């Protein structure tokens, strides 16, 4: 809670100058840390990139079919080599996404083993991604902050919206994945369910996909990249690094915990080389742009061309 005692606490309820000191650190101020906080291990950076690629691919190939009545759909489908090839690409991307999920879970298990923490700590500790009572309290506090009834809450490693995003993906993969498999192997699945389930699977698959793409390309983009204070993007998930000042400002509770048990030092690393940052930005910009275009397309298809 040392942070909150700092001098320049603005109305927004965070410590603005700290960010500056991080910048100043480059110039060699002795008191300022030059290194950055490692928020994501390399595995998760790669997995997120895989997720982006497969998700965008799935969205483009899938939506071209869903919105086949729009003028753009046939062109997009042709870009992917025709509906047949687009279908193969779609299923390949689905496999990549399944692989990503499996790799993520394996990664989590291995991380748990390495840390030697108990399941209880991992699942219910402060760094857990599972929703806790604290999340409920923070949500209420956030709403109060939004309407001017209180300060910005002291978020921990994972905010409640980050947890929502995380589980939305899990939910989406289960729902879209299972219905997708049904559509992939309709003859096999109709051994167990009647034919019209294929129709139902189609509706669920496509509407859940609409929800997923719509959510990721608007809410997730805003929450992480487009928030005015982070505009135009937050590269943390790509580089894995977060300026220390940002950690202090955005995740004060995590920072405080790290300071308290003196573990901060082992989470600090030299900044990524310039070239890596540039590549990362290029990649992220591409993904963002495609995402925005898809949103525009969805809005157009849903509102102006809906059938």
């Amino acid at each position: 809670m040392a942070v909150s005692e700092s001098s320049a606490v603005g109305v927004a309820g965070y410590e603005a100058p700290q960010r500056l000191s991080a910048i100043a650190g480059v110039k060699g101020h002795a008191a300022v840390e030059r290194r950055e906080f490692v928020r994501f291990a390399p595995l998760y950076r790669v997995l997120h990139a895989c997720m982006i690629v497969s998700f965008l691919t799935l969205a483009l190939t899938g939506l071209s079919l869903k919105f086949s009545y729009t003028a753009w759909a046939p062109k997009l489908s042709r870009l992917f080599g025709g509906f047949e090839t687009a279908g193969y690409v779609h299923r390949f991307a689905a496999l990549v996404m399944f692989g990503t999920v499996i790799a993520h879970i394996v990664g989590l298990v291995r991380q748990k083993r390495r840390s030697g923490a108990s399941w209880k700590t991992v699942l219910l500790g402060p760094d857990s991604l599972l929703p806790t009572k604290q999340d409920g309290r923070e949500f209420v506090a956030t709403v109060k902050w939004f309407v001017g009834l209180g300060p910005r809450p002291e978020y921990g490693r994972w905010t409640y919206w980050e947890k929502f995003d995380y589980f939305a993906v899990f939910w989406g993969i289960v729902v879209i994945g299972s219905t997708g498999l049904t559509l992939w192997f309709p003859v096999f699945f109709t051994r167990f369910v009647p034919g019209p389930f294929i129709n139902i699977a189609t509706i669920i698959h496509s509407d859940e996909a609409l929800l997923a793409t719509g959510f990721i390309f608007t809410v997730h983009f805003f929450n992480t990249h487009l928030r005015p204070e982070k505009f135009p993007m937050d590269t943390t998930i790509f580089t894995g690094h977060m300026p220390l000042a940002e950690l202090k400002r955005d995740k004060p509770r995590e920072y405080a915990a790290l300071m308290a048990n003196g573990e901060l030092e082992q989470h600090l690393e030299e900044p990524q080389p310039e070239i890596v940052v540039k590549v990362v930005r290029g990649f992220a910009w591409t993904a963002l742009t495609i995402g925005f275009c898809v949103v525009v397309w969805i809005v157009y298809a849903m509102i102006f061309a809906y059938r």
Partner: protein
Amino acid sequence: MKRYAVTAAIVWLLCAVSLAAPRPIADQKVSNDDCLACHGDKSMTTKRGGRTVSLFVEQKKFGGSVHGSLSCTNCHADLEGKELPHSTPLAKVNCGNCHSDEAQQHAKSLHGKAIAKGDSLAPRCVNCHGNHDIVPVKDPRSAVAPLKVPFVCGQCHREGTPVQMNRSIEQHNILENYSESIHGEGLLKKGLVVAANCASCHTAHSILPHTDPNSSINRRNIATTCTKCHANIEQVHRKTIRGELWEKQSNNLPACVDCHQPHKVRNVFYSQGMADADCMRCHANASLKSADGRSMQVNLDDLGGSRHVKVACSQCHSEVNASRVRPCETITKKVDCTACHEAIGQQYVLSVHGKLHAQGDANAPFCKDCHGAHHVLGKHNPESMTFATNVPDLCARCHREGQKAAVRYTGAQHEIVSNYNESIHGKGLLKSGLTVTATCTSCHTAHGELPASDPESTVNAKNVPNTCGTCHHGIEEQFLQSVHSPTQTKTDAKLPTCKDCHSAHSINRTDKDQFKLGIMGTCGKCHEKIAETYFETYHGKVSRLGFTKTAKCYDCHGAHDIQKVTDPRSHLSRANVVNTCKKCHSDATRRFAGYLTHATHHDPKKYPFLYLTFWGMTALLIGTFAISGLHTLLWFPRAFQMRRELREAEARAAADEHGNDEESEEGKNGGK
């Protein structure tokens, strides 16, 4: 004396023997009186083939007939030695026993051959000559006397008789035409028995078809036949026949009947005495002009290669008068081709072209507009305007967009010619050179064109399947059994015909994408709802994307053999549906076939589960977006505030660090 007596006795004996010789035979024979004992009774009848036939023989007539001196058994030879009264019907009388020449001729003739084949309509001796009352041919009472011959032949060769209707006889109205001809008039009206009657040309017993080289009316023989009477006719034909060539090489020259139609010999096509050379005396001149300035020159080479190479000028330009110095000055009408091409003329008169022409419409095409004038080539000649590959261009002269027929046309068909040229028929004809491909005339006919609205038109909706079926016969058979055929579906609604799906002129290849992707719209013209819902399912969406490797209407419902799905013959009937799915989904099962190919989630009554699923998902979607959207909106002001304060702090820090280098601005500053 004794010698004389012996001689006289021998002579007498011989005479007696010779006179007496028949007697014993005559004694064994049945006498005519024996026969007439029964057959002299007028009331004597018998039943033959269910009909009552009189068996009465009038003794007086028989006695007066040419056979009056013969006994009954001379002809009815099978009665010889039979017990009387005989019960069995007698064998047919064989006249050939005595009249062997005539019998042989008859046997070789058309009639005799027909009898040999068992044709019940073929005439025997008795049919023309009668039986017991036959008198000499020269006797005016004879059934085959010249005045009666037309009626004897006419028994069978009149219009409406079984022979005329059922046997292939190319000539029509034979009797009527004959009676109006110069021969018929001479014979029948003027009683001129030397005038030619049927037998004069056809012979009495050797009647043969004109195609038979031995026939008296064969091209090679007709001159001989006619010159039997018209012995000096070549003098009349001096110009065409060049001396005696007519008789010696009659096959190289027009035969009599080419000009003087058989049976209507009076209606000659041209004035006697006109020949091409007479015409060419003026018309070979290049400077010959008509009153309105057209060149009147005729190039005989044009005629040379034409179908009318053997036709004389005056046969077509028929009103010439040979007695004039300028024979053609009597011509008042244009050439009328129907004098020879009568059947075609009748079609033309009823066609829209013919009707317009009759109205004096200047745009209406007449024979020569399509066939040319002197250089008429048959439709089998590639040079001909009417040769298959040239037909589209020929019709296009008027029917191409902007041309005179297209301009006045008010129907729905446009760009007819260019559409045709790009169609499967047009490409087949013009690119692949397939002369059997359908051209304009294949569907519209060559001479009987009628607008599609006319029920008689070959392209009228009700006749279209038949018209297309001329070539696509197998398809027509399928179609006529399908739900779209009026023979199967009784409805007031309009049923589709070939052209509604395939179009009239721009007929696409059905294996090309354009057709495959268009078919849903085509079926959707009538099956609007079902086509719409098709596009809500996978198959429909894929085809919307422009890809054809997915089930389209006809893949499941069939193309020409469409039946109601409730019909066991339907590709989608319970028994067939799985196999239909298997065409693409090789491992399809009955359950799999339960997929709703026309499902919509907008119909709560028909598809309640889909409807509920859709609105459930939509509620989830709207709920999620409402909450997170509100969250984001509320966040905005705070986020902006944060940004502002961050900037201010940065600016302050920058001021504090006045004088420091600027490089630090770039780098890890996520804000900018």
